Protein backbone atom coordinates (compact mmCIF):
# COMPACT_ATOMS: atom_id res chain seq x y z
CA UNK A 1 0.00 0.00 0.00
CA UNK A 2 3.04 2.20 -0.33
CA UNK A 3 1.72 4.78 -2.76
CA UNK A 4 -1.88 5.07 -1.65
CA UNK A 5 -2.62 8.77 -1.59
CA UNK A 6 -2.52 10.17 1.86
CA UNK A 7 -5.77 11.09 3.46
CA UNK A 8 -6.20 14.52 4.90
CA UNK A 9 -5.27 15.65 8.34
CA UNK A 10 -8.15 15.48 10.80
CA UNK A 11 -9.21 19.02 11.44
CA UNK A 12 -9.50 18.90 15.18
CA UNK A 13 -9.96 22.05 17.17
CA UNK A 14 -8.65 23.59 20.39
CA UNK A 15 -8.96 20.33 22.31
CA UNK A 16 -6.98 18.31 19.82
CA UNK A 17 -4.20 20.79 19.28
CA UNK A 18 -3.71 21.41 22.96
CA UNK A 19 -3.45 17.66 23.43
CA UNK A 20 -0.85 17.41 20.68
CA UNK A 21 1.11 20.22 22.29
CA UNK A 22 0.77 18.67 25.73
CA UNK A 23 2.07 15.38 24.49
CA UNK A 24 5.00 16.91 22.61
CA UNK A 25 5.99 19.13 25.51
CA UNK A 26 5.65 16.29 27.99
CA UNK A 27 7.94 14.11 25.91
CA UNK A 28 10.40 16.93 25.47
CA UNK A 29 10.57 17.71 29.15
CA UNK A 30 11.05 14.07 29.99
CA UNK A 31 14.00 13.72 27.67
CA UNK A 32 15.50 16.92 29.02
CA UNK A 33 14.98 15.72 32.56
CA UNK A 34 17.06 12.61 31.87
CA UNK A 35 19.89 14.77 30.57
CA UNK A 36 19.47 17.28 33.32
CA UNK A 37 19.84 14.69 36.06
CA UNK A 38 22.93 13.34 34.32
CA UNK A 39 24.61 16.69 34.08
CA UNK A 40 23.71 17.63 37.61
CA UNK A 41 25.25 14.35 38.74
CA UNK A 42 28.57 15.72 37.70
CA UNK A 43 28.62 17.59 40.97
CA UNK A 44 29.60 14.24 42.39
CA UNK A 45 32.57 14.01 40.03
CA UNK A 46 34.19 17.34 40.66
CA UNK A 47 33.31 21.00 40.77
CA UNK A 48 35.37 21.55 37.61
CA UNK A 49 33.47 18.97 35.66
CA UNK A 50 30.14 20.38 36.75
CA UNK A 51 31.04 23.91 36.01
CA UNK A 52 32.30 22.91 32.59
CA UNK A 53 28.98 21.40 31.61
CA UNK A 54 26.96 24.14 33.16
CA UNK A 55 29.12 26.53 31.22
CA UNK A 56 27.74 24.99 28.11
CA UNK A 57 24.22 25.95 29.16
CA UNK A 58 25.30 29.52 29.31
CA UNK A 59 26.16 29.96 25.67
CA UNK A 60 23.56 31.84 23.61
CA UNK A 61 22.31 28.85 21.61
CA UNK A 62 21.75 26.77 24.71
CA UNK A 63 20.25 29.82 26.32
CA UNK A 64 17.64 30.00 23.61
CA UNK A 65 16.94 26.29 23.88
CA UNK A 66 16.65 26.75 27.59
CA UNK A 67 14.07 29.46 27.02
CA UNK A 68 12.14 27.11 24.74
CA UNK A 69 12.26 24.44 27.38
CA UNK A 70 10.94 26.77 30.01
CA UNK A 71 8.12 27.75 27.66
CA UNK A 72 7.35 24.07 27.16
CA UNK A 73 7.26 23.47 30.88
CA UNK A 74 5.10 26.49 31.52
CA UNK A 75 2.64 25.48 28.82
CA UNK A 76 2.59 21.87 29.94
CA UNK A 77 2.02 22.92 33.50
CA UNK A 78 -0.83 25.31 32.76
CA UNK A 79 -2.42 22.95 30.28
CA UNK A 80 -2.03 20.19 32.84
CA UNK A 81 -4.09 22.31 35.21
CA UNK A 82 -6.63 22.79 32.43
CA UNK A 83 -6.85 19.04 31.90
CA UNK A 84 -7.31 18.54 35.62
CA UNK A 85 -10.09 21.11 35.66
CA UNK A 86 -11.76 19.42 32.70
CA UNK A 87 -11.65 16.18 34.64
CA UNK A 88 -12.77 17.40 38.04
CA UNK A 89 -14.62 20.68 37.73
CA UNK A 90 -18.23 20.02 36.75
CA UNK A 91 -18.25 22.87 34.30
CA UNK A 92 -14.78 22.15 32.99
CA UNK A 93 -15.76 20.37 29.78
CA UNK A 94 -17.91 23.32 28.73
CA UNK A 95 -15.18 25.80 29.43
CA UNK A 96 -12.30 23.90 27.89
CA UNK A 97 -11.86 26.18 24.89
CA UNK A 98 -11.83 29.29 26.99
CA UNK A 99 -9.40 27.63 29.37
CA UNK A 100 -7.16 26.72 26.48
CA UNK A 101 -6.87 30.38 25.55
CA UNK A 102 -6.25 31.28 29.15
CA UNK A 103 -3.45 28.70 29.23
CA UNK A 104 -1.88 30.26 26.17
CA UNK A 105 -2.37 33.72 27.63
CA UNK A 106 -0.78 32.83 30.95
CA UNK A 107 2.09 31.09 29.21
CA UNK A 108 2.63 34.17 27.12
CA UNK A 109 2.52 36.55 30.07
CA UNK A 110 4.86 34.43 32.14
CA UNK A 111 7.31 34.08 29.29
CA UNK A 112 7.09 37.79 28.63
CA UNK A 113 8.21 38.32 32.18
CA UNK A 114 10.85 35.65 32.11
CA UNK A 115 12.45 36.07 28.69
CA UNK A 116 13.93 39.57 29.08
CA UNK A 117 15.43 38.61 32.38
CA UNK A 118 16.76 35.29 31.12
CA UNK A 119 17.95 36.42 27.72
CA UNK A 120 19.45 39.42 29.38
CA UNK A 121 21.47 37.05 31.52
CA UNK A 122 22.40 34.87 28.57
CA UNK A 123 23.38 37.61 26.15
CA UNK A 124 24.23 40.31 28.60
CA UNK A 125 27.66 38.85 29.37
CA UNK A 126 28.98 38.81 32.87
Amino acid sequence: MATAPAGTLYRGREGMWSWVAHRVTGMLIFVFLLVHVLDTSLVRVSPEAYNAVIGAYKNPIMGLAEAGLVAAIVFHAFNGIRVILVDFWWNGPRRQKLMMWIVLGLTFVLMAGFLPRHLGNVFGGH
Partner: protein
Amino acid sequence: MTATLSEPAAVGEVPTFDVTLRIRRFTPETHGDEAYWQEFTIQAHGTDRLLDALHKAKWDVDGSLSFRRSCAHGVCGSDAMRINGRNRLACKTLLKDLDPEKPITVEPIKGLPVIKDLIVDMEPFFASYREIMPFLVSESQKPTKERLQSAEQRERFDDTTKCILCAACTSSCPVFWTDGQYFGPAAIVNAHRFIFDSRDDAGAQRLEILNDKEGVWRCRTIFNCTEACPRGIEVTKAIQEVKRAMVTRAY
Protein backbone atom coordinates in the same frame (compact mmCIF):
# COMPACT_ATOMS: atom_id res chain seq x y z
CA MET B 1 -36.67 17.86 -14.26
CA THR B 2 -34.72 19.91 -16.75
CA ALA B 3 -32.15 22.47 -15.79
CA THR B 4 -33.62 25.88 -15.21
CA LEU B 5 -30.43 27.85 -15.31
CA SER B 6 -31.41 30.04 -18.25
CA GLU B 7 -34.59 31.29 -16.64
CA PRO B 8 -34.14 34.20 -14.28
CA ALA B 9 -34.45 33.08 -10.68
CA ALA B 10 -37.76 34.09 -9.19
CA VAL B 11 -37.91 36.02 -5.95
CA GLY B 12 -37.13 33.74 -3.05
CA GLU B 13 -35.96 31.02 -5.42
CA VAL B 14 -33.25 28.84 -3.97
CA PRO B 15 -30.03 29.63 -5.79
CA THR B 16 -28.33 26.97 -7.84
CA PHE B 17 -24.59 26.50 -7.90
CA ASP B 18 -21.93 24.01 -8.87
CA VAL B 19 -19.92 22.10 -6.32
CA THR B 20 -16.98 19.77 -6.67
CA LEU B 21 -16.75 16.75 -4.44
CA ARG B 22 -13.38 15.17 -3.94
CA ILE B 23 -14.14 11.69 -2.75
CA ARG B 24 -11.67 9.18 -1.43
CA ARG B 25 -12.59 5.96 -3.10
CA PHE B 26 -11.59 2.41 -2.40
CA THR B 27 -12.91 -0.26 -4.74
CA PRO B 28 -10.69 -3.30 -4.43
CA GLU B 29 -12.72 -5.30 -6.93
CA THR B 30 -12.11 -2.93 -9.79
CA HIS B 31 -9.24 -0.60 -8.94
CA GLY B 32 -6.94 -2.71 -6.85
CA ASP B 33 -6.03 -2.40 -3.21
CA GLU B 34 -5.27 1.25 -3.24
CA ALA B 35 -7.48 4.13 -2.40
CA TYR B 36 -7.72 6.97 -4.88
CA TRP B 37 -9.37 10.34 -5.18
CA GLN B 38 -12.16 11.00 -7.62
CA GLU B 39 -13.74 14.36 -8.33
CA PHE B 40 -17.36 14.94 -9.21
CA THR B 41 -18.74 18.30 -10.21
CA ILE B 42 -22.46 18.57 -9.83
CA GLN B 43 -25.19 21.14 -9.67
CA ALA B 44 -26.70 21.79 -6.29
CA HIS B 45 -29.43 23.92 -4.75
CA GLY B 46 -29.26 26.23 -1.79
CA THR B 47 -30.92 23.82 0.60
CA ASP B 48 -29.08 20.71 -0.55
CA ARG B 49 -27.23 18.59 1.93
CA LEU B 50 -24.01 16.85 1.18
CA LEU B 51 -26.03 13.65 1.01
CA ASP B 52 -28.01 15.07 -1.88
CA ALA B 53 -24.78 15.83 -3.69
CA LEU B 54 -23.48 12.31 -3.06
CA HIS B 55 -26.74 10.95 -4.40
CA LYS B 56 -26.40 13.05 -7.52
CA ALA B 57 -22.88 11.79 -8.02
CA LYS B 58 -24.05 8.22 -7.61
CA TRP B 59 -27.30 8.43 -9.49
CA ASP B 60 -26.23 10.63 -12.38
CA VAL B 61 -22.52 10.03 -12.76
CA ASP B 62 -21.04 6.90 -11.26
CA GLY B 63 -23.33 4.26 -9.83
CA SER B 64 -20.46 2.39 -8.24
CA LEU B 65 -19.90 5.13 -5.68
CA SER B 66 -20.96 3.51 -2.41
CA PHE B 67 -22.02 4.91 0.92
CA ARG B 68 -24.58 4.04 3.58
CA ARG B 69 -27.60 6.18 4.24
CA SER B 70 -31.19 5.80 5.24
CA CYS B 71 -33.24 8.44 7.04
CA ALA B 72 -31.66 11.51 5.39
CA HIS B 73 -32.30 13.74 8.38
CA GLY B 74 -29.80 12.82 11.02
CA VAL B 75 -31.61 10.26 13.11
CA CYS B 76 -30.45 6.84 11.91
CA GLY B 77 -26.68 7.26 12.12
CA SER B 78 -25.84 5.62 8.80
CA ASP B 79 -23.81 8.25 7.06
CA ALA B 80 -21.06 9.47 9.33
CA MET B 81 -18.09 10.41 7.15
CA ARG B 82 -15.15 12.76 7.15
CA ILE B 83 -16.16 15.95 5.39
CA ASN B 84 -13.47 18.55 4.86
CA GLY B 85 -11.41 16.84 7.51
CA ARG B 86 -14.09 16.55 10.18
CA ASN B 87 -16.54 13.82 11.06
CA ARG B 88 -20.14 14.71 10.33
CA LEU B 89 -23.33 13.21 8.98
CA ALA B 90 -23.66 13.82 5.26
CA CYS B 91 -27.40 14.33 5.67
CA LYS B 92 -26.96 17.03 8.28
CA THR B 93 -24.33 19.00 6.43
CA LEU B 94 -25.66 21.71 4.16
CA LEU B 95 -23.50 22.39 1.13
CA LYS B 96 -23.85 26.12 1.50
CA ASP B 97 -22.22 25.88 4.93
CA LEU B 98 -19.16 24.20 3.46
CA ASP B 99 -17.76 26.92 1.25
CA PRO B 100 -18.80 25.40 -2.10
CA GLU B 101 -16.21 27.52 -3.87
CA LYS B 102 -13.58 24.96 -2.97
CA PRO B 103 -13.74 21.22 -3.59
CA ILE B 104 -15.35 19.38 -0.70
CA THR B 105 -13.25 16.50 0.56
CA VAL B 106 -15.16 13.41 1.57
CA GLU B 107 -13.46 10.42 3.18
CA PRO B 108 -14.56 7.43 5.18
CA ILE B 109 -14.41 7.72 8.96
CA LYS B 110 -11.04 6.81 10.33
CA GLY B 111 -9.88 3.92 12.47
CA LEU B 112 -12.34 1.31 11.23
CA PRO B 113 -11.46 -0.97 8.31
CA VAL B 114 -12.64 0.48 5.00
CA ILE B 115 -14.54 -2.03 2.91
CA LYS B 116 -15.61 0.00 -0.06
CA ASP B 117 -15.53 3.74 -0.72
CA LEU B 118 -17.16 5.41 2.27
CA ILE B 119 -18.33 2.16 3.82
CA VAL B 120 -16.39 0.89 6.82
CA ASP B 121 -16.69 -2.24 8.88
CA MET B 122 -18.72 -1.19 11.91
CA GLU B 123 -18.37 -4.48 13.74
CA PRO B 124 -15.49 -3.44 16.05
CA PHE B 125 -17.52 -0.38 16.97
CA PHE B 126 -20.62 -2.35 17.85
CA ALA B 127 -18.53 -4.94 19.67
CA SER B 128 -17.33 -2.27 22.09
CA TYR B 129 -20.88 -1.06 22.50
CA ARG B 130 -22.13 -4.53 23.33
CA GLU B 131 -19.42 -5.01 25.88
CA ILE B 132 -20.51 -2.28 28.26
CA MET B 133 -23.85 -3.99 28.98
CA PRO B 134 -25.97 -1.42 27.15
CA PHE B 135 -29.27 -2.44 28.70
CA LEU B 136 -31.20 -1.79 31.85
CA VAL B 137 -30.44 -4.28 34.59
CA SER B 138 -32.91 -4.21 37.40
CA GLU B 139 -32.77 -6.64 40.24
CA SER B 140 -35.74 -5.29 42.08
CA GLN B 141 -39.12 -6.92 41.71
CA LYS B 142 -40.88 -5.36 38.74
CA PRO B 143 -43.97 -3.47 39.79
CA THR B 144 -47.11 -4.16 37.81
CA LYS B 145 -47.18 -0.53 36.78
CA GLU B 146 -44.28 1.64 35.72
CA ARG B 147 -41.35 2.27 38.04
CA LEU B 148 -41.35 5.76 39.39
CA GLN B 149 -38.62 8.15 38.40
CA SER B 150 -38.58 11.86 39.04
CA ALA B 151 -38.06 14.34 36.24
CA GLU B 152 -34.73 15.30 37.86
CA GLN B 153 -33.56 11.69 37.98
CA ARG B 154 -34.41 11.32 34.33
CA GLU B 155 -32.69 14.56 33.44
CA ARG B 156 -29.48 13.14 34.90
CA PHE B 157 -28.89 10.90 31.87
CA ASP B 158 -31.05 12.60 29.26
CA ASP B 159 -28.13 13.84 27.19
CA THR B 160 -26.63 10.43 26.58
CA THR B 161 -29.93 8.81 25.59
CA LYS B 162 -29.73 10.75 22.34
CA CYS B 163 -26.95 8.63 20.87
CA ILE B 164 -27.67 7.13 17.44
CA LEU B 165 -24.52 4.96 17.29
CA CYS B 166 -23.19 6.73 14.25
CA ALA B 167 -19.54 6.35 15.33
CA ALA B 168 -18.68 9.92 14.41
CA CYS B 169 -17.23 10.39 17.89
CA THR B 170 -15.24 7.20 18.22
CA SER B 171 -13.74 7.53 14.77
CA SER B 172 -12.67 11.11 15.48
CA CYS B 173 -10.72 10.16 18.57
CA PRO B 174 -6.94 10.12 18.08
CA VAL B 175 -6.60 7.53 20.83
CA PHE B 176 -8.98 5.22 18.97
CA TRP B 177 -7.02 5.68 15.73
CA THR B 178 -3.85 4.37 17.30
CA ASP B 179 -4.83 0.74 17.70
CA GLY B 180 -8.60 0.52 17.69
CA GLN B 181 -8.57 -1.16 21.08
CA TYR B 182 -9.87 1.78 23.11
CA PHE B 183 -13.55 1.30 23.94
CA GLY B 184 -14.14 4.71 22.46
CA PRO B 185 -16.44 7.55 23.42
CA ALA B 186 -19.64 6.02 22.02
CA ALA B 187 -19.38 2.99 24.27
CA ILE B 188 -18.74 5.21 27.27
CA VAL B 189 -21.67 7.45 26.36
CA ASN B 190 -23.93 4.44 26.29
CA ALA B 191 -22.57 3.16 29.58
CA HIS B 192 -23.20 6.61 31.04
CA ARG B 193 -26.80 6.39 29.91
CA PHE B 194 -27.33 3.44 32.24
CA ILE B 195 -24.88 4.19 35.04
CA PHE B 196 -26.80 7.34 35.88
CA ASP B 197 -30.27 5.88 35.40
CA SER B 198 -31.89 5.69 38.83
CA ARG B 199 -33.65 2.46 37.84
CA ASP B 200 -30.47 0.57 36.98
CA ASP B 201 -28.59 -1.80 39.29
CA ALA B 202 -25.53 -2.68 37.24
CA GLY B 203 -23.68 0.59 37.39
CA ALA B 204 -20.87 -0.94 39.45
CA GLN B 205 -20.36 -3.68 36.87
CA ARG B 206 -20.20 -1.20 34.02
CA LEU B 207 -17.71 0.92 35.90
CA GLU B 208 -15.69 -2.21 36.44
CA ILE B 209 -15.69 -2.93 32.70
CA LEU B 210 -14.69 0.61 31.81
CA ASN B 211 -11.92 0.53 34.39
CA ASP B 212 -10.16 -1.71 31.89
CA LYS B 213 -6.88 -0.55 30.46
CA GLU B 214 -8.73 0.11 27.21
CA GLY B 215 -11.46 1.91 29.10
CA VAL B 216 -12.10 5.48 30.21
CA TRP B 217 -8.55 6.07 31.38
CA ARG B 218 -7.35 6.11 27.81
CA CYS B 219 -9.37 9.22 27.15
CA ARG B 220 -7.06 12.22 26.98
CA THR B 221 -9.84 14.82 26.91
CA ILE B 222 -9.19 15.66 23.28
CA PHE B 223 -12.78 16.77 22.63
CA ASN B 224 -12.86 15.71 18.99
CA CYS B 225 -15.73 13.45 19.98
CA THR B 226 -17.78 16.26 21.43
CA GLU B 227 -17.16 18.41 18.37
CA ALA B 228 -18.13 15.57 16.06
CA CYS B 229 -21.31 14.36 17.71
CA PRO B 230 -24.20 15.19 15.39
CA ARG B 231 -26.66 14.87 18.25
CA GLY B 232 -24.92 17.53 20.27
CA ILE B 233 -24.16 15.15 23.11
CA GLU B 234 -21.55 16.52 25.48
CA VAL B 235 -19.48 13.41 25.07
CA THR B 236 -16.37 14.47 26.96
CA LYS B 237 -18.51 15.66 29.83
CA ALA B 238 -20.17 12.26 29.98
CA ILE B 239 -16.77 10.58 30.01
CA GLN B 240 -15.64 12.91 32.76
CA GLU B 241 -18.68 12.00 34.83
CA VAL B 242 -17.93 8.32 34.42
CA LYS B 243 -14.31 8.87 35.46
CA ARG B 244 -15.36 10.76 38.52
CA ALA B 245 -17.90 8.11 39.43
CA MET B 246 -15.12 5.55 39.22
CA VAL B 247 -12.80 7.53 41.45
CA THR B 248 -15.49 8.17 44.05
CA ARG B 249 -16.47 4.54 44.00
CA ALA B 250 -12.91 3.42 44.59
CA TYR B 251 -12.23 5.79 47.49
